[in-house]
C-alpha cells in the first residue's frame, strides 16, 4: 500500500551545523524517485530524515515537516519506531545480521515486532525472498548464515528483509555502489518490479542508473562551499537529463563538476 510523501521546508542539523536547508518536494506513490548530486550535498542526510534515522546520529535534529499521506512524521506524539516500520531502508553496504540465518534475517523485522508463528513467518519469508529475486538461490539453505552469501546476494537479502515488513515507502541509499555490474542490473530490475507495490526513493551517484531506473529525479547541490545542501531541481527524469531548467543541473549532468 504505497503512500505519497510531501516534504515541506525541511532543514536538518548535525549539532549546530546545518546540513540541508529548506527542502520541499512531492513524491508520488508507486513511483521511483532518484536523488542525484555531488558528494557531500546532503542527499543521504535528506533520505535519512524521511524515516527518522537522522536523529539516531548524535546531534541530529530536524525542522520542517514530512507528510506521509497527510500524516506528519515529525508531529508531536509520533513514535519514530512506528515511522520506521512504515518507511523501510536499504543501506549502501549490505548488513545482514551475522548471528542469524537467512530465514531469521528476513524474518527479523517481523519477529522482533511480534509475529511469532512459524507457518506465518515461512509464508512471508518466501514471499519476500521471491520479491527480492533471491528465492531460487537460497531456498535450499535457509538455515545457513546470512553472511555466507556473495555481495549481490547479501544486498538482495537486505532488500527482502526490508520488504518483509510491508512498508509503504522503501528508501535506498546507494544500494548498488558496493556491487558488480551484474548484481547491479539484477537490483535495478528488482526496483522496476517493486515499484508496483511500494513508493521508492533511491540515492545514487550513478547518473546512468538514475536515468534507467527512476520516474522523477531530484538534483541536490551545495549553494556554495561550506553552505548547506539545497534542492536545486526536481522533474521528470527525461526532462532533467535532456532539458533541465537550471544551469547547475545541466553542468552536473554533463560532467562539468561533481
Amino acid at each position: 500500500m504505497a503512500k505519497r510523501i510531501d516534504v515541506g521546508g525541511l532543514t536538518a542539523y548535525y549539532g549546530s551545523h546545518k546540513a540541508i536547508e529548506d527542502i520541499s518536494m512531492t513524491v508520488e506513490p508507486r513511483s521511483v524517485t532518484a536523488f542525484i548530486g555531488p558528494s557531500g550535498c546532503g542527499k543521504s542526510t535528506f533520505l535519512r530524515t524521511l524515516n527518522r534515522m537522522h536523529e539516531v546520529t548524535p546531534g541530529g535534529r530536524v525542522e520542517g515537516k514530512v507528510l506521509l499521506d497527510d500524516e506528519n512524521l515529525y508531529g508531536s506524539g509520533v513514535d519514530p519506531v512506528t515511522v520506521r516500520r512504515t518507511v523501510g531502508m536499504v543501506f549502501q553496504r549490505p548488513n545482514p545480521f551475522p548471528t542469524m540465518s537467512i530465514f531469521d534475517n528476513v524474518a527479523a523485522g517481523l519477529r522482533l515486532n511480534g509475529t511469532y508463528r512459524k507457518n506465518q513467518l515461512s509464508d512471508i519469508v518466501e514471499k519476500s525472498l521471491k520479491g527480492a529475486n533471491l528465492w531460487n538461490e537460497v531456498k535450499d539453505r535457509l538455515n545457513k548464515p546470512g553472511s555466507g552469501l556473495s555481495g549481490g546476494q547479501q544486498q538482495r537479502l537486505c532488500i527482502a528483509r526490508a520488504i518483509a515488513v510491508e512498508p509503504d515507502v522503501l528508501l535506498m541509499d546507494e544500494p548498488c555502489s558496493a556491487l558488480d555490474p551484474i548484481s547491479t542490473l539484477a537490483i535495478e530490475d528488482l526496483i522496476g518490479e517493486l515499484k508496483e507495490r511500494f513508493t521508492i526513493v533511491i540515492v545514487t551517484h550513478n547518473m546512468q542508473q538514475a536515468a534507467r531506473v527512476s520516474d522523477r529525479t531530484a538534483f541536490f547541490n551545495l549553494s556554495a562551499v561550506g553552505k548547506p545542501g539545497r534542492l536545486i531541481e526536481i522533474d521528470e527524469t527525461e526532462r532533467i537529463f535532456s532539458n533541465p531548467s537550471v544551469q547547475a543541473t545541466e553542468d552536473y549532468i554533463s560532467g562539468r563538476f561533481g
Partner: protein
Amino acid sequence: MTHATTTDIQDDRPRTSPEPRKAGLSSRSLPRWSPLGFAVVAIALGVGISLAAGWHSRVQWGLISALLFMAISYVTTTVVENQRQAKDRLATSIVWVCFLVAVVPLASLLWTTVSRGVERLDGYFLTHSMAGVLGPEHSGGVYHALIGTLEQVGIATVISAPLGLLTAVYLVEYGKGSLARAVTFFVDVMTGIPSIVAGLFILSIMLIAELEPSGLMGALALTILMIPVVVRSTEEMLKLVPNELREASLALGIPKWRTILKVVLPTAIGGITTGVMLAIARIAGETAPIMLLVFGSQLINTNPFEGAQSSLPFYIYEQYKVGEVASYDRAWAAALVLIAFVMILNLVARGIARWKAPKTGR
C-alpha cells in the same frame, strides 16, 4: 688462415674475467643453521667463562650466554652479510631472549606445581575435608575449600555479571552526559582497588551491622573486585559491534532496547563470555578478603549465608603456615586444583566464544 676449425672469423674482443662480479639482486647469506651454531658457541663460551671465574649460578651462566649469543650473531652477520641483516638478527635474538625470560619462570611454575601437587591429588583428596585431621597427618582433603571457592565465586558472578553487563550497555548505548562520565571514572578507580581494601570495606560493614563472617561476605568483596573487570571488557566488546548492524535493525522499526537485546548482545556474546570468565579467573585466586571475611574453617559448610567457610587460596595459605611435610603436600595439591580450575574455566570460555561466534559457513 690455416685453422681446421669451422670458425673463420676470429673473435678479437677482449675476454672478460671468468666469474664477473655482478652487482645484482643476490648476495652472500649465512646458512640456515647459523643461529643454532651461534647459540652453541655462545653457551660453550658462557659456561666456560663462568666456570673459570668461579660463578655457579645457572642464571648467571644463562645471562652471559645470552649476551655472548647476541654479540656473536651481530658481528658475524655484519661481516658475512650486511648491517641490515645483522640488525634484523639482533632484534630477533632480543625478542627470543625476552620470550624465554618470560616463559621459563611460567613453565617452571607449572612444572613444579604439577610435579609436587600430583603426589597428593586423588579422589580422596577432592572429596574429603580437613575435619579432625591434624597438621602432620597424611590425610585430609580439599573438599571444604573447593565448595567454599565454588560458592563464593558463584555468588560473586551471579551478582557481578548482570550488573557489569548492564552498566556496560548503558555506557556504550545510552550514556552520553555527565552521569556516563562519572560512571566511567568510578569504574576506572575500582579497577585499581587492592583486594585487601575491598575486604576491609566489607569488613567495616560487617562490624557496623554486626554480621557474622560467612561465605556471602567474602563473595561481596569479590564482587567489588569483579564488577570493573566485567564492565571494561564488555564495553570493549560492545564497541566492536559495527554501527551498521544497529542502524539496520533500527531501520526495520525495531525499538532500541530490542535491538540491543537481539542484535547487539548476540553479536558480542562470545567476547562478553570470555571477559566474564577471565574476571572469574581473577577473583578465584584472591586470598586477602577471604581471610578477613570468611574466617576459614576445617569443616564442610555448604551454606554460604551462615558460618565460616574455607576457600582454595585460603586453604593453601593455611596449610603452608602449618609447616609440616604433609601439609606442604596438601598445599601443593590444592594449588594444582586451583590452577586446574582456572584453566578449565579459560578453556570453557574459549569454547563458548568459538561456538557463539558469528558463523561464516556457506
